């Protein structure tokens, strides 16, 4: 039982789910506005690198977080210009930016830190110790000592869920993703709304990246996001383009990941349990969900379609 629902596995689940959830939340915001941003992976990666870079150069954690988020914003801004203003193909632009982020961070990592690795003395995001939970079995070990970013993520989920479905600006953002022409007619600035949404997605993904580098690892390594941004997209889809759903999906995926570690080498009926196959669950579930075999995930109606204002 310990390997299935022990405090260690649950704590690992939360650790593994957090960056995925942040990327997924970014995906929810941008796709709800009608822009597909597969550069979330790249936004995470620049967040992870520039967080460490700024932490090294300034020695200040707030500065590191600010620079990381600015890096995510910068990459997202490039996507916004390409996708919204130039109505470029959003997938190609996203792929290009992912490659750019990988090339840029690996290039700088090689030029700056190749001989030494990133410095071990940089300021890290502190954990939140919940002393009163120490005596509580399982729960205390699972949530009693998580990074501050985990709690921030939870707050963002609640905020975004209320924002998108209970406020007027949230309704406007969704209307832009469902029916931009109608939204335009009602006086909503489609392009502006989409710009803000894409920028927000970049910031959220970058926060996920910083969590990986300045909270979990304490350092940067090439391509350290390793597809987490894409799992985030999967979580967004599986979570039906809602913040709460995205969080739930991220936790499910994170649990699968945590199991693939805790079940390593465990034998079932004489066979070594194929833990690697557990890692395919997010991708298979996502395909099944979009295909309508597991629930039904419907994307925003105008998702991925560039919007031309009147008179074409």
């Amino acid at each position, binding site marked *: 039982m310990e390997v299935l629902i022990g405090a260690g596995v649950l704590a690992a689940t939360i650790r593994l789910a957090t960056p995925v959830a942040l990327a997924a939340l970014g995906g929810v915001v941008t796709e709800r506005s009608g822009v597909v941003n597969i550069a979330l992976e790249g936004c995470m990666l620049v967040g992870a690198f520039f967080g460490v870079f700024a932490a090294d150069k300034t020695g200040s954690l707030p500065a590191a977080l600010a620079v990381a988020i600015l890096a995510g914003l910068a990459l997202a801004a490039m996507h916004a210009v390409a996708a919204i203003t130039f109505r470029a*193909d959003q997938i190609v632009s996203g792929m290009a930016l992912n490659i750019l982020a990988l090339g840029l961070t690996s290039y700088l990592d090689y030029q700056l830190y190749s001989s030494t690795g990133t410095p071990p003395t940089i300021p890290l995001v502190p954990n939140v110790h919940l002393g009163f939970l120490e005596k509580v079995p399982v729960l205390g070990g699972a949530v009693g000592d998580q990074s501050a970013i985990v709690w921030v993520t939870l707050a963002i989920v609640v905020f975004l869920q209320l924002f998108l479905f209970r406020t007027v600006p949230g309704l406007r953002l969704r209307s832009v993703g469902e029916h931009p022409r109608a939204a335009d007619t009602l006086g909503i600035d489609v392009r502006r709304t989409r710009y803000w949404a894409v920028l927000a997605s970049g910031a959220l993904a970058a926060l996920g990246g910083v969590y990986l580098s300045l909270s979990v690892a304490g350092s940067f390594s090439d391509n350290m996001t390793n597809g987490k941004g894409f799992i985030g997209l999967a979580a967004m889809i599986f979570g039906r383009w809602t913040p709460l759903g995205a969080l739930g999906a991220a936790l499910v995926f994170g649990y699968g990941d945590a199991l693939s570690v805790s079940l390593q080498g465990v034998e079932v009926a004489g066979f070594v349990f194929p833990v690697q196959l557990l890692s395919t669950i997010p991708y298979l579930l996502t395909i099944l969900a979009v295909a309508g075999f597991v629930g039904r995930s419907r994307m925003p109606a105008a998702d991925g379609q560039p919007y031309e204002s009147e008179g074409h």
Partner: protein
Amino acid sequence: MRQPSFDWTQGPAIPVVSVLFALVLGGLFVWISGHDPIQAYAALFRGAFGSPYDVSETLVIAVPLLLAGLSVAVAFRAGLFNIGAQGQLLVGAVAAGWVGALWPDLPGILLLPLTLAAGVLGGAAYGGIAGWLKAARGVNEVITTIMQNYTIVFVMHWLLQNGPMQAPNAFGTPASAPIGAGAILPIVLPDFLVPSSRLHAGIVLALLATLGFWFLLWRTSLGYELRAVGLGMRAAAQAGIDPRKRMVIVMAIAGGFAGLAGMIQVSGLFHRVYDGFSAGFGFDAIAVALLGKNTPVGVLLSALLFAAFSRGGTLMQSDAEISSHLVEIVEALVLFVIAAETVVRAVARRWGRPVKAAS
């Protein structure tokens, strides 16, 4: 309904300009980071073409890039975006590696065609799934193929680490058993021409595949239909072409090209399947197809260009101490410029619209 303007015959001006633009911007970047861009590019060029051996190594990289590029290009021609060349390549490699090692004692005349068929069919099946999901369930092929790319990576981890393909090996990387001698593609450059060249007969297969790509699209009725679907789903439907049926076929063909690339990596280069095998070719293939404007000659030339970048980048790092990742930056910039092109935009307009609504 405005007609998407697909002007594929347009000259090479835009690709050439976008490459030059990316090289200049990349050079600027090298300069800002305190190095000499001229020296960097000179080292890059020497690395790719400096000696006959370097040229043959560049070609070794160009072979899978060309095939994966054709995979992406054939899907583009039919208005589909195949992000899954990477996954299809891996499935092809696994299938080829499995069949090639299954009967190691078979003579080449039997084993090589079997291995080839396994690679092509494996890739085709994987691609076909994405086509079928799109046709039958309206699932966007971009989503499916991204998910498939990751799925096969983890399946390979299992197959090679503690699954049925696990084999003892001396290199420390999980790998399958070596394929039989009959499944190996021979080296085409003799030692007296280029000593210890690794260039294998896969290059012949890749060139034949390029010819096949041209023949399929411009000399067969199926190719005509595929291009018609690519030009406009509704128009094609009115002309009596069922776009949905074509989707399965085109994604299977795309997967077949990528699967052939995987088979060639196994039969020509590594003679077994490794964990972490041929990473990234399928993604570079998107740039290759787009830069080559989905034409046979264009894809061939851009595969050579990106292969030269890749090979040259490695040498640039050891010679000029400039990170080989500069190459990725240049590649990303090329892609980014191309992203804005009208050609691609036409595909973008259909992204996300389920087939049922369109046909």
